[in-house]
């Protein structure tokens, strides 16, 4: 005979395997986070902080920049929690999106510093400074634009691209995994790539001009 519990908490935790105390599941953490329960910020940090920090370290190298990105990501997520809707997707995916933005900001900051130090070097050598006013490094702006465009894509296009790129699935595997018809997956991929292309060609050109 099953005992009815008044508080439906999941016992145990996929991350820690610890039996005690009962841990809220990821969905419960997300709901409490959105509701402003302070414990949920600590839970979210316990569960996803190392993964976000790993992203930042991969993008920026270990050090103060990556630490700043992690700190800013959680602070903006907490301050902006009203913008998170638990019914629109998992909390960790939302946090990753915020973290990518902070990483993009850090890339731009670094690139600006690099140009400034190049400029200082050129003027010290009394060389022409034709490059000083040039736009940001193409690879950096491309990444910043792509991150912004990913956010604009909306679902299911963004999820399909994430499965293709971040999980390395083929379009057939994506269709199988999500239940979206094969032709629709192909069509979403095509449209999303074309959209990225226009964004890079149009806005990329504007940023470099």
């Amino acid at each position, binding site marked *: 005979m099953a005992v009815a519990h008044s508080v439906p908490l999941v016992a145990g935790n996929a991350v820690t395997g610890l039996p005690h105390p009962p841990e809220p599941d990821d969905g419960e953490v997300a709901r409490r986070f959105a509701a402003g329960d302070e414990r949920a910020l600590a839970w979210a940090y316990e569960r996803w902080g*190392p993964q976000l*920090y790993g992203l930042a370290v991969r*993008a920026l190298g270990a050090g103060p920049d990556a630490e700043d990105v992690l*700190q800013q990501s959680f602070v903006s997520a907490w301050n902006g929690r009203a913008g998170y809707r638990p019914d629109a*997707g998992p909390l960790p995916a939302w946090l990753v999106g915020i973290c990518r933005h902070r990483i993009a900001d850090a890339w731009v900051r670094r690139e600006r510093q690099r140009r400034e130090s190049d400029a200082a070097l050129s003027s010290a050598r009394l060389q022409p400074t034709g490059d000083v006013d040039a736009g940001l490094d193409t690879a950096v702006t491309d990444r910043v634009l792509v991150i912004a465009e990913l956010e604009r894509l909306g679902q299911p296009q963004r999820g399909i691209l994430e499965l293709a790129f*971040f999980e390395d699935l083929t379009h057939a595997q994506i269709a199988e995994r999500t239940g979206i018809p094969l032709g629709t997956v192909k069509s979403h991929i095509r449209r999303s790539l074309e959209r990225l292309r226009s964004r890079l060609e149009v806005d990329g050109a504007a940023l470099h001009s």
Partner: protein
Amino acid sequence: MQHCTREELALAALSEPLTPDQDAHLASCGACSAEVGSLRRGVDTLTALPRPATAPAVLPPPAVWSAIAAATGVSATPRPEVLAASAAAGGAPGAPPPPAPTAAAPRPPADPPVDELALRRRARRRWLAAVAASLAVGIVVGASGAALVGRSDDAVTVAAAGLSPYGGSDASGEAVLRVRDDESRVLDVRLTVRPTGGDYFEVWLLDPASQRMIALGVLDGGQTALPVPDGVDTSVFRTVDVSREAVDGDPAHSAFSIARGEL
């Protein structure tokens, strides 16, 4: 041999295998291979982004949480043993974090090394589940978006635009772009006002950069579903425009727009 479809070219840009016939055509056709090349810039950029599946989790230094707690005023604290367990669970064995760039020459991150492919194969199931879950939600949201304009077929909503009054009108409404299983597209448009005095409303897609327009059709009875021709790139022609037209036999835009919105 006919040209590859745009879907096939997009898959080729992702390095997905094509049929031998398509591969042969691609190798010999300048137009098709140029199309693949032009898509590669976005593909390469996406590939270079840090992603949860390949970036090993790393235990953050304690100072980070202290700074978060100070900035948010939150007094709850993460448990060190749980944090360490998350870092260990999310780690990719044998993949040390890359060294920090030197302060003298900060550079953007290098492209992923080739051996990262092996790491990608070990993508963590948790993230896959999370992304798949968000996709399922997206589909549900898409379905409800379609329901908004009273459609019940199983086309997927890919974009939507709120239509706001334009040019001093009081017309507003919404437009929802959907893709059917056969990949044909349809734009559902709904408007709050009806034409009066013998005029009619027409729906257009506008490229805001070039101001070029494509006529989609007549908005009849306040709500209608209009097919979007194949080949119209709605990321370029992304502004939905509704015009008031006189029955004068002139097929051009009357220049009296009453509502607009961006897809």
